[in-house]
């Protein structure tokens, strides 16, 4: 190699010093968290939101959860018939829908298996609690996350179909 060889010791000093200068001029790579926040990507698995109206308490999510952290209770109710004169319908009514975030592994299987589009991922992540028991979110709390659920992102070129959830 024609280039004169710089001793590795000096090169190392150069790297740290140039980073020092870069941090001083361009700013740090870190974010001062409570003051500034990074926006997680749309698909980020932050918290699970529940659209209660769609849930039929079919228990699919609860059964497919790898660590069984979803608790569902429901009962059947008679709803007024769709057409006049018809027989009253049997409807599953949701009594309890809890997700224990102290157990949840954020794998997303429940959202995927839900056949009625009742569960969604929201990228919201700030819900830590001083008490571990408070991490059990009930259905009203899970319902509140619904408004933070973003639209599904567009897909990269060459994708087969428009993205679903």
């Amino acid at each position: 190699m024609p280039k004169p060889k710089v001793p590795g010791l000096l090169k190392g000093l150069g790297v740290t010093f140039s980073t020092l200068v870069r941090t001083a001029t361009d700013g740090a790579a870190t974010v001062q968290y409570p003051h500034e926040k990074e926006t997680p990507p749309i698909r980020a698995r932050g918290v699970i939101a529940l659209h209660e109206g769609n849930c039929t308490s079919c228990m699919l999510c609860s059964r497919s959860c790898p660590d069984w952290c979803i608790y569902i209770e429901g009962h059947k109710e008679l709803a007024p018939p769709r057409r006049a004169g018809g027989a009253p319908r049997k409807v599953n009514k949701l009594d309890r829908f809890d997700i224990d975030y102290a157990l949840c592994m954020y794998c997303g299987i429940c959202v995927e298996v839900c056949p009625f589009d009742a569960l969604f991922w929201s990228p919201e992540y700030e819900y830590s609690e001083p008490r571990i028991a408070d991490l059990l979110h009930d259905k009203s709390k899970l319902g509140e996350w619904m408004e933070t659920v973003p639209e599904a992102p567009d897909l990269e070129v060459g994708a087969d179909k428009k993205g679903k959830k």
Partner: protein
Amino acid sequence: MTMLGDRQQLSYIAAQAADARVNVELETEGMTLNIGPQHPATHGTLRIVARLDGEQVVWAEPVAGYMHRGYEKLTEVRTFPQVTALINRIDWLGSFANEVPFILAAEKLMGVEAPPRAQHIRTILFELSRIANVSLFLGDLGVQLGAVTPVFFAFRDREYVLNLIEAATGGRFHPNFDRIGGLKDDLPAGFIDETRTVMVKLRRFCDEIESLLFGNEIFQSRTRGVGVIPRDVALSYGLSGANLRASGVEWDLRRDQDLPMAWNKADWKVWTHPDGDSFARCWVRLQEVRESTKIVDQLLDTIPAGPVMTKVPKIIKVPEGEAWVSTENPLGEMGYYVVSKGDLGPFRVKIRSASFNNISIVPWVLRGVYVPDIITILASLYFILGDIDR
């Protein structure tokens, strides 16, 4: 002395003999040093029992199992989709790479194959997780050797890769994105451009690490000629991955196997190093990060259009049979031997994880080195505790 294997017995006797010798010559006695299970250098809870004579190691033995989580057993009571969420956590730094061999084994049993687009994206994510994993190794290497700065560079630049993985899969550490028959979803828009810029950053990171660590004379004097593993010893202990390639064995499952993945669509090189010492192992890994960025760049150009999922039934039942698939993971060869009895979940899964085999050489390679070299050799062997204990 009960219940010890022959080799252990021999090394125990050797240690006692060494003690006796030291006692006669210098009127000193040896010392047993327990490095771990809680120790800053074992990244996890590995324990190394080292018998010392001064600062020299007479005998050393790794004690694994402090973090055993029983994955092989857990998988028996899970369905196939649930298993991928679990096995993510074996090698937690390159978790997407854990899913791939299992999914490939299940696909082999079912006789399905992912569409070309899914294979491509799988390979890209596989290489991204390799980059995330090994770049953290490069930074961690600095810490093990006493340099504080490289690890921050590593965390800084790994962050970009993790952001990519999160944008595509939704999970930073545990993607759970691979499905039998394809992928959960397609890539989000903008992923390709973003990945290209990140690959440029990662190549710069490699250059920085090279001038900060690899070119440093102190680093070289600490690693060159230390912990030499000759070729035949490496082969007989079943090392894999960069540890084997650093001993001069040109062996890479990405190239040598015919898997439904896209590695053969890119032009890349298998790096080897003839020395087999700590420096060689670290250097080979550095080159592999560079090579992986190249693979990703090439694959981004050639992603075919099409679906990312073949037709598979909604409720997956894998037909009866047995399959073994292993891939070249960031840490080495990782394979799953899946036995299915036609149920929702596997009947038995044997996980061959790279680190467990890689640390089996520890007693051999640590004999006669100094205490600081224990740390550099362990760092250069590069294990992840989850990968040892599963």
